[in-house]
C-alpha cells in the first residue's frame, strides 16, 4: 500500500505539477461560476444549479478558512481598508453583471436599474463587512504566528 502511493515525481516535477494544478483549479473555479450563471440565465431555475453551487461554496469556504488559518491574505493585495473597498466595489459590480446576464434582460429598464442599485449596495455592504472582519482576523492570526516563531527561538 505504501509503495502504491509513492511519489514518482522529483522536486522540480512536483513544483511543475503544483503549478499545473493551480492553473487548472482556477480555470475550473471560474468556469464553474460561469456555468452557474449561464444555466440560471437559460433555465431560470435555481434548483438546476444547486449541486454546482454547493461545490463552489464548499471549495470557497475551505480555501478562505485554510488561508486564514495560516495567516495568508493574498499574493498581491494587502489586508487594508483600501483593498476591502476595491474588492467590495468589484464584487458589487460582478453581482450586478451576473444578475444582468441572468434576469435583468427580462425586466423593464426602470426595474432593472432599481434592482441593479439594490444588488450593488447589498453586495458592497456585505462584502465590505466580511472583508473588514477577515482583514482583522488575518492580521491577528499573523501576529500570533509571528509570536509563536519568536517563542521557538
Amino acid at each position, binding site marked *: 500500500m505504501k509503495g502504491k502511493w509513492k511519489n514518482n515525481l*522529483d*522536486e*522540480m*516535477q512536483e513544483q511543475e505539477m503544483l503549478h499545473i494544478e493551480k492553473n487548472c483549479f482556477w480555470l475550473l473555479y471560474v468556469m464553474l461560476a460561469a456555468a452557474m450563471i449561464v444555466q440560471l440565465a437559460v433555465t431560470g431555475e435555481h434548483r438546476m444549479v444547486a449541486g454546482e453551487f454547493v461545490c463552489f461554496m464548499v471549495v470557497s469556504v475551505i480555501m478562505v478558512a485554510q488561508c486564514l488559518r495560516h495567516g495568508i491574505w493574498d499574493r498581491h493585495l494587502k489586508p487594508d481598508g483600501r483593498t476591502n473597498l476595491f474588492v467590495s466595489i468589484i464584487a458589487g459590480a460582478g453581482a450586478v453583471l451576473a444578475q444582468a446576464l441572468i434576469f435583468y434582460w427580462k425586466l423593464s429598464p426602470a426595474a432593472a436599474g432599481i434592482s441593479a442599485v439594490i444588488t450593488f449596495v447589498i453586495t458592497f455592504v456585505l462584502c465590505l463587512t466580511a472583508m473588514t472582519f477577515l482583514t482583522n482576523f488575518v492580521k491577528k492570526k499573523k501576529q500570533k504566528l509571528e509570536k509563536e516563531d519568536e517563542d521557538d527561538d
Partner: protein
Amino acid sequence: MKNLRLKAARALLDMSQKELADAVHVSRQTINAIEKGDYNPTIKLCRAICRVLHKTLDELFWEDEEDEG
C-alpha cells in the same frame, strides 16, 4: 544563470546528466534545468549533488553578488 561549475564537475567524473540524475534520484530534466539555470534546487538536492560529485556547496552553488545581479 547557467551553472557551468556543475556541468564541469560532472564532466570531470565522466558522468552523463542521466547518471547524475539517477544517483540523486531525480529526472534528467531536473539536472538539465539546474545546469541551464532554469530551476533553483532545494538545499537537500544541492547537498545530494555535492556528495555525488565530491564537491562542496560553495564550489558548485555559491554565487558572488555580481553573478546574482
